[in-house]
C-alpha cells in the first residue's frame, strides 16, 4: 500500500495543470468564478478545446476516441479540472448515452453518433423521469408503437436538464405492456429533438432559473434504426448507465476545491473584523467536512481501483452517490453560513459579466451561495433519490 504518485503520474499532473492554465478561456473562467451561468456556446467552445487535446472522453475506450487513462490519471485530471474551476463536461452525451451506444449499439449507430458527441457537435439530454414516474421509474408510460419503418412515440418526460439546449434526447419508452415484469417492456430510444411533435416547456426551479424542462411527445415518428440494442432490454441498459452516472456523481474533486475556497475566504477579514476562521465553531465545522470528504475521496479511489482490475462499478457506486451528494449539500449550507446576511440579496441581473461592478450588491460568491444551496437540494433527489440508492445497497450489497 502506498499513496504516492509515480514519476510518470507526476509528469502527467504537470501536463494537465499547464494545459488548464494555458487553454481554459479566461472569459469562461471569469464566469465560473463569479457563479455566472454559462451559455451553450461557452460549453461547446470549452468542450471543443478539450476535444482538440484528445481529453474529451475520459472514460471511453481508445478505439472510439477515449483517453485510455488509468484510474489515477482520471483522478489527477478531475482534481486539476476542479482546481482550475473549469466546468465539467455536460454529462448526458459523453458520460451517459455514449457508453450505452458503444456497448449495446450497432456499428452504424456508433459511427453515426459517437463522433458528434466526442466533438461536442451534438448536445444530448436524458428522458427518463415522467410526471407519474419518479423513484418508481419502471412504471413509465411514454409509449413507442412500432410500425413498418418507425416508432410512434407519445408521452411526457420531465426534469429534463438542459433540454432547451439539446439536439437529441435518449429515452426509456414502453414498447410493450404484455410482459411478465414491467421492466421487460421498456426500450432505449434515441430521438432527434427537431422531430415534429416534440415540444419543450421550461420548469423554473426554486432558485428562479431555468435548468430543467418538461418535454412533450405527440405522435413523434422515430426511425426504427434509433432503437439501441434489443427491444425490451432498455431497463438493463439504463441501469448500467445509471451506475456510471453514480460514480461521476460524488464530485469529490470539486467539493475539495470549494472547501479550500471557503477556508481562504473565511481567513480574510472584512473591515478589520476578526476573520470567521477564528470562530472555533466555524473552524470545527470546516475540519469535520474536510475529514468526511477525505474519507469519501478514498472510498472513491478504492472503488475505482476495483474497477481498474476489471470489476464493473456495481451497487457500491450508490454509496458514493449518497455520501457525495450529502457532502455537496453540507458544503452548500456552509457557504451560506459564511455569507451571513449577504446570502439573502436576490439580484439575478448581477450575474452577468457586463453588470457594472460598482452597482453590485455584496460579493457574488456570497449572494450566489443561497441560490446554489436552493438549487442543489436536487442533488439528493436526482439520479435515483438517496432513499432509492439505499434500497439498492440494501438489496444488492447487504442482501436484505
Amino acid at each position, binding site marked *: *500500500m502506498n499513496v504516492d504518485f509515480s514519476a510518470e503520474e507526476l509528469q502527467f499532473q504537470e501536463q494537465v495543470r499547464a494545459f488548464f492554465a494555458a487553454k481554459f478561456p479566461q472569459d469562461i473562467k471569469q464566469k465560473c468564478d463569479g457563479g455566472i451561468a454559462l451559455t451553450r456556446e461557452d460549453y461547446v467552445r470549452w468542450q471543443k478545446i478539450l476535444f482538440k487535446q484528445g481529453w474529451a472522453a475520459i472514460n471511453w475506450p481508445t478505439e472510439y476516441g477515449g483517453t485510455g487513462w488509468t484510474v489515477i490519471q482520471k483522478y489527477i485530471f478531475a482534481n486539476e479540472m476542479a482546481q482550475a474551476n473549469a466546468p465539467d463536461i455536460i454529462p448526458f452525451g459523453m458520460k451517459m448515452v455514449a457508453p450505452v451506444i458503444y456497448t449495446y449499439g450497432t456499428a452504424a449507430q456508433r459511427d453515426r453518433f459517437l463522433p458528434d458527441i466526442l466533438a461536442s457537435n451534438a448536445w444530448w439530454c436524458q428522458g427518463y423521469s415522467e410526471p407519474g414516474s419518479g423513484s418508481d421509474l419502471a412504471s413509465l408510460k411514454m409509449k413507442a408503437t412500432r410500425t413498418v419503418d418507425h416508432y410512434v412515440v407519445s408521452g411526457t418526460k420531465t426534469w429534463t436538464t438542459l433540454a432547451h439546449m439539446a439536439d437529441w434526447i435518449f429515452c426509456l419508452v414502453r414498447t410493450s405492456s404484455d410482459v411478465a415484469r414491467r421492466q421487460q417492456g421498456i426500450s432505449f430510444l434515441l430521438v432527434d429533438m427537431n422531430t415534429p411533435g416534440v415540444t419543450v416547456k421550461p420548469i423554473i426551479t426554486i432558485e428562479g432559473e431555468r435548468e430543467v424542462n418538461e418535454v412533450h411527445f405527440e405522435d413523434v415518428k422515430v426511425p426504427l434504426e434509433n432503437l439501441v440494442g434489443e427491444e425490451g432490454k432498455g431497463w438493463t441498459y439504463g441501469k448500467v448507465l445509471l451506475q456510471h452516472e453514480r460514480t461521476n456523481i460524488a464530485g469529490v474533486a470539486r467539493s475539495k476545491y470549494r472547501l479550500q475556497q471557503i*477556508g481562504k475566504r473565511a481567513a480574510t477579514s472584512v473591515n478589520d473584523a476578526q476573520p470567521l476562521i477564528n470562530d472555533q465553531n466555524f473552524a470545527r465545522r470546516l475540519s469535520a467536512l474536510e475529514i468526511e470528504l477525505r474519507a469519501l475521496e478514498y472510498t472513491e479511489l478504492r472503488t475505482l481501483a476495483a474497477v481498474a482490475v476489471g470489476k464493473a462499478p456495481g451497487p457500491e457506486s450508490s454509496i458514493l452517490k449518497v455520501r457525495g451528494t450529502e457532502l455537496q449539500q453540507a458544503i452548500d449550507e456552509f457557504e451560506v453560513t459564511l455569507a451571513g446576511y449577504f446570502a439573502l440579496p436576490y439580484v439575478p441581473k448581477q450575474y452577468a459579466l457586463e453588470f457594472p461592478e460598482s452597482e453590485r450588491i455584496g460579493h457574488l460568491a456570497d449572494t450566489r451561495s443561497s441560490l446554489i444551496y436552493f438549487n442543489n437540494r436536487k442533488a439528493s433527489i436526482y439520479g435515483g433519490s438517496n432513499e432509492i440508492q439505499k434500497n439498492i445497497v440494501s438489496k444488492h450489497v*447487504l442482501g436484505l
Partner: protein
Amino acid sequence: MDFSISEEQSMLSDSIAKFIENDYDFETRQKIAAGDLGYSADLWATYAELGWTAVLFEEKDGGLDGGPIELMLMMQQFGKGLLVEPFLANIVLAGGALRRSPDSELRSKWLAKIIDGSLQASLAFTEPQARFAVNDITTTAESAGDSYKLDGVKSFVLNGGIADLLVIPARTAGGQSDEDGITLFAVPADSVGVSRRSYKTVDAQQAAEISLKGVVVNQENVLGKVGDGLAILQATIDEATFAVCAEAVGIIRTMHDKTVEYTKNRLQFGVPIGSFQALQHRMVETLIACEQSQSLLYWSAMINAGNDSAARKSVSALKYQIGTAGVHVAKEAVQLHGGMGVTWELDIAHYFKRLTAISILFGDADFHLDRHVQFSKQSVA
C-alpha cells in the same frame, strides 16, 4: 497509489484470523477476561511464538521492521476477535516508547524480553488532571547526583497492575503544561516507593492508579535526552491512537456484519426484521460509516510513515471519525439487536464496550477535532 497489500502482510493478517478462528472464540475470550490476570499468559506466549510481538520493532532490536500497514492489519484482526491480551499497552505503548529511545543499551536491555514475551511493560501516559493532554504532567523528577527521585501520581496506566516495567514521563523542568522539560524514565515496577492499585476496565482490560513516592531511578534509565521526552511520548501516543482506530475499524465492521446477519434471522410479525425499510436504511448508513472509516484508515496508514504534522493530522481525522461514525455504528448494532444487544451474554455488548473505550482513549472526538483545527491553522500560518 496502490491499495494492495504484500504477500507477507496478508500472511500476517491471516495468521491472526486463523488464531481467532481456532483458539479464540467468544466463550474463550470471556473466560480469559473473567480470570484474575485479565488475559492469557499462555496465549501471550503464543503471540510471541507467532512473531506478532516482534513486528513493530526494528531488525537491529530483534524485530521484523513492520510499519503502519502491518500495525493496521494486526489491530483490525485484534478488533474483530476482541482479543484482551495487552498488545496495545505492552508492545505499542511501552515498547513504542522504548524503541524510539536513541540509547541502544537501554533498548537491548528491555526490548528482547518484550519481544520474547517474558516481560510486561506499561507506559504511564496520563495523570488525574490531564485528560487527553500528554504534555500535562505534574509528576516531578528531581536530579540527585547520578540518579533522579520521582514523585507524583499516574492514572489509568494500562497493563499497570501486572507490568514488570513502567515507562514514566516526569518533569525535570518547566511548568505543568510546558512542552519542554519532560523526561521519560524506565522504572522497574518493584522499585521502592511505587505503589499500585489495579483494577479492570469496562472493556475487559486492566489498568492501575500508580503513586510514586521518592522513587529513585538511575540516570541510565532515562529514555532519550533529559527534558526532551515529549517528542518520543507524543509519537508513541499518535501511533497508539492510530492503532486503536484500526482496532475500531475491525470492531465496527464485525458489529455491522453481525447486525445484518441477525436481522435476516430474527422474525417478528412473521417476517425477518431485516425486511423492514426503516431498518434497512439504517444498516446502509452503518455500511457507509464502515467504508468511510476504512478509507480514512488506509489513507492515514499510507501517509503515516512520515510521522510529520500531516501524518499526525491524519490520525486526528481518523480518531474523530471513529469517535463519531464509529460510535454510531456501534449504537445502531445494539439497537437493531433489540433486547439481546444489551445482554452480557451476547458478544455485541462487549464489542460495544471496547468501542466505547476506544472512543475515549487518547482523546475523544471533540479533542481530536480541535487538534485537527490546530494543525490546519499551523499549515496556513
